[in-house]
């Protein structure tokens, strides 16, 4: 399956990339998507979304999903 991964704001700078792509053969959780993509540990307050909806780190990803990682939001 193919998973696209996106990083925003300070996480984008920390990871050094705004996008990545994974083609895992086994099922993955969001947490595992991070581990398989990044060499650094996930910061504590990281938020995650699958296909632009907030999810928990334990959520399983599916083929074609867009997984996003970002810090606490600070709009407004």
């Amino acid at each position, binding site marked *: 399956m193919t998973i696209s991964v*996106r990083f*925003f*704001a*300070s996480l984008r700078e920390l990871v050094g990339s705004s996008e990545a792509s994974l083609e895992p053969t086994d099922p993955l959780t969001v947490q595992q998507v991070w581990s398989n993509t990044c060499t650094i540990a996930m910061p504590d307050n990281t938020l995650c*979304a699958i296909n*632009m*909806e*907030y999810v928990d780190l334990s959520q399983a990803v599916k083929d074609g999903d867009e997984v*996003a990682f*970002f*810090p*606490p*939001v*600070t*709009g*407004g």
Partner: protein
Amino acid sequence: MKWLFSHRLPVAEMTIDIRSEAFNPWTEIQSYQSAQLPAGKYGATASFIGTMRDFNEGDGVQAMTLEHYPGMTENYLTKICNEAMQRWDIIDCLIIHRVGKVEPNDPIVLTVVWSAHRGAAFDACRYLMEELKSRAPFWKKESLASGERWVEKNSPG
């Protein structure tokens, strides 16, 4: 991809507008109201505008850059408006939010709610702002004399 940052999504009685350029909130409200609102039907208009200050946490701030997650931001702003429209009897609502480089005294966000009576307008306008601040994926990076820093979290309402 200019369109991604400035298109409008009119869904029923709401408009979500993410802008990459400076806007004047008062002329925006006035022109939106003239074009969209039924004359004589709304008795209450509550608005909130968030404006960039030139200081934060004790430091002078020269500029700010706002990043967002195109698509997800619009989704969440639409969700938040829909929630407000389910909870309160409102006629219309408008959210405008800046992205890109912002300077002190520039408006960053505008939320406006029109309703028949004041309670709904006040409640819903505040709800939009609180939910926007806690859920809509925007991020601020400040430019100080000493360099840049990401704003780590929003102040409570």
